């Protein structure tokens, strides 16, 4: 291990701001990318259910 304490790890040899800013921004972009397809899939299923309900509603009752 390169660091002797947690504080030293956070400080990154006085470059903490740059290192953690880089990793933080990357995390935000990666998490957004990971969530997008999951949310879109959910929305697609919801829309499909709505379409089906409308079709049933509009179908002439026998």
């Amino acid at each position, binding site marked *: *291990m*390169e*660091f002797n304490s947690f504080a030293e*790890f956070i400080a*990154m*040899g*006085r*470059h*903490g701001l*740059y*290192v953690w*800013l*880089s*990793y933080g*921004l*990357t995390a935000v*972009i*990666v998490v*957004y*990318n*990971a969530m*997008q*397809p*999951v949310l*879109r*899939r959910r929305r*697609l*299923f919801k829309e*499909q*259910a709505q*379409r*089906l309900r409308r079709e049933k509603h509009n179908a002439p009752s026998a």
Partner: protein
Amino acid sequence: MWQWLTRLYHRLGSPKWFYEITERWIFWLALGSAVTAVIGLVLGLLFAPADYQQGDSFRIIYIHVPAALLAQSAYMMMAVAGAVYLIWRMKMAAWVARVIAPIGASFCLIALLTGAIWGKPTWGTWWVWDARLTSMLMLLFLYFGVMALQQAMESEDASYKAGAILALVGVVNIPIIKYSVEWWNTLHQPATLKLTEKPSMHPDMLWPLLIMILSTYLFFALMVILRTRNEILWHERKRQWVRKIMEP
């Protein structure tokens, strides 16, 4: 070999086949990408020795280099998918190209942002109009341009074609990015990894980088698959097999 290739091509062109086969890959890609990311980050942030010149700021390399590599590979993939659509009208190729663009742009943005942040303590400036940085910025704008064209036209077909043409034209930028550090006198350091040479990095620094690159590519594959599956669900929503999947 040729028969095998044509069979693969026809299968890849089938949304149903793609949707069904990738079902089983999702879990393993997610697991592989997550595990390699944890290993790579722990090794890179905690165990790799600090750089003798740059100190600990060099640890930004573990996201910067994988993101920059991926942004370029993704662009090439997007251009190839666009070409397949232009030549053979394979709609799956158009959806894949459409899906890659925002992911590639995300990684290009990561490369640019982390590069700027890394530049501050290393070069004393966030940004210079140097060949490598400028050509990477061009790549980001190409991604934006392709994304805009892919939804610019009246018909979906014309939009996909326009996007594919810009993607193909923009391919000239890829060798410019690669050789920018050799052709011009740049502030950016030369390539960290070269296929033809033994790496100059210490193995303790190099391994986390290779693992992070693997992780990034696995994540990319997962994202392309998930988004393409959504495109399939949307475009094929009227087909029987999709209706069956989406039935409540």
